[in-house]
């Protein structure tokens, strides 16, 4: 059998993940995380009398803490196995990407283990997130100079 023929056979025989099911669970779990964020924000504003801007920051901090905690007790990856992109995209996914290698590489020491490996997964998000924000800033500046945005 030729390689191309074999690759077609492999494609036919390999069980695929269901796109509809994956999207549904990503929406459900990702949406639930966002709903939790909104609930926290309301609690901070209404019950704790915290200004809206600061409440937003507190929500981020709370979700990051919660994600790190759930990663630490070995629960986050189980939720992510079902939630997929729904747990990857929110800020909780970033916290999980930082905490999980820290847990894994602590045996290799603080300096050569935890330090460099901390960003082994999240490094791309940091690098390209920063680059994207620069591009966004330039576009925003141009649009502002042209009077399109305020």
């Amino acid at each position, binding site marked *: *059998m030729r390689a191309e023929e*074999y690759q077609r056979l492999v494609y036919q025989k390999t069980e695929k*993940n269901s796109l509809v099911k994956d999207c549904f669970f990503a929406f459900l779990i990702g949406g639930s995380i966002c709903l939790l964020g909104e609930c926290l924000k309301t609690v901070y504003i209404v019950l704790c009398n915290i200004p809206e801007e600061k409440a937003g920051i507190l929500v981020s901090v709370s979700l990051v803490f919660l994600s790190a905690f759930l990663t630490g007790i070995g629960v986050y990856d189980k939720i992510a196995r079902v939630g997929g992109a729904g747990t990857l995209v929110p800020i909780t996914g970033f916290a999980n990407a930082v905490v999980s290698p820290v847990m894994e590489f602590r045996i290799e020491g603080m300096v050569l283990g935890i330090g460099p490996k901390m960003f082994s997964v999240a490094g791309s998000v940091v690098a390209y997130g920063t680059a994207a924000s620069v591009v966004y800033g330039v576009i925003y500046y141009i649009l502002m100079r042209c009077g399109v945005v305020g």
Partner: protein
Amino acid sequence: MNIKKIGSGTYKIHGNVSVLSCAAVVGDMEKKGPLGHCFEHYSSDEYFGQDSFEKAESYMQKEAMKYAVEKSGYTAEDIEFIFAGDLLNQCIGSNYSVRDTAIQFFGLYGACSTMAEGLILGAMAIDGGFASRVIAMTSSHFCSAERQFRFPLEYGAVRPRSAQWTVTGAGCVVLGCEKTFPRIRHVCPGAVCDMGIKDMGNMGAAMAPAAALTLKRFLDDTGTTPEDYDLILSGDLGEVGYDLLKNLLSHDNIFLGNNYDDCGRLIYDRKTQDVHSGGSGCGCSASVLTGYVLPKMRCREYNNVLFMTTGALMSPISSLQGETIPGIAHLVHLQNDGEVEAQA
């Protein structure tokens, strides 16, 4: 003159090369799987009392070797060579497991095909008159393999349906020149075969062509058919690779029937254990061979077995550089034949 070679690449073991003893050590998930009752030695602690997964893997090998040597009735001093390997960089699982012995050591890397690779080299060493007794051993650990080949354990990644679960387990076989059974009758080392599969989440597909190549070569060289064997067992093709191997061989008019199975399909219950396409890793075939197949041969439930381990020879580096995954499959023919049984 090559008197042992048959056909294009199968080698007949003329003398007595028999399995003296064997032992498996497995983790909790394997103990809870369908073959759990076959595994006497296990730990529900994934660290096996050590402080890292790599040390746990070495410990498993060390324990398996200890039990196998004890059962053989010999001591470490009676054994000439150890052929051992694992999946970790620089084969540290094996290097560290044997460091307290004085036995001469060959470190192997055949990815998940290491068990049969060790048996082949061990059988050749004995049949060639270089040794009287050797050890073939290998292991894998889910946690050490995950962090080397994929993501940190607690990272929330979604596994594709075709992905396999690395077995936490070690298997050790003591081979000797004694007239006992089961005996190694033929060996068929594999050639590297690459059919352009790039997906690290579909190892079964990457290895199936190599398995087809080796099995076809063996059957052609020996003039036998799959029906001649009680059991044909591939290493860790999983559900996807199992289907693909059957399909590939059917194009050459070789039809694998109910006597064919795969260690990756046997070791876990795919319905209740979240392992997707099945088990993988050196420890998969090694623990199934030493915990299930060889004991069954000892009580003559199986008398004629083809044990073929399969390996995917990529690394995370080659995959990141866009390389395809080369596969390999090594085959060992184990038999309790009439002559050997009479002498035993």
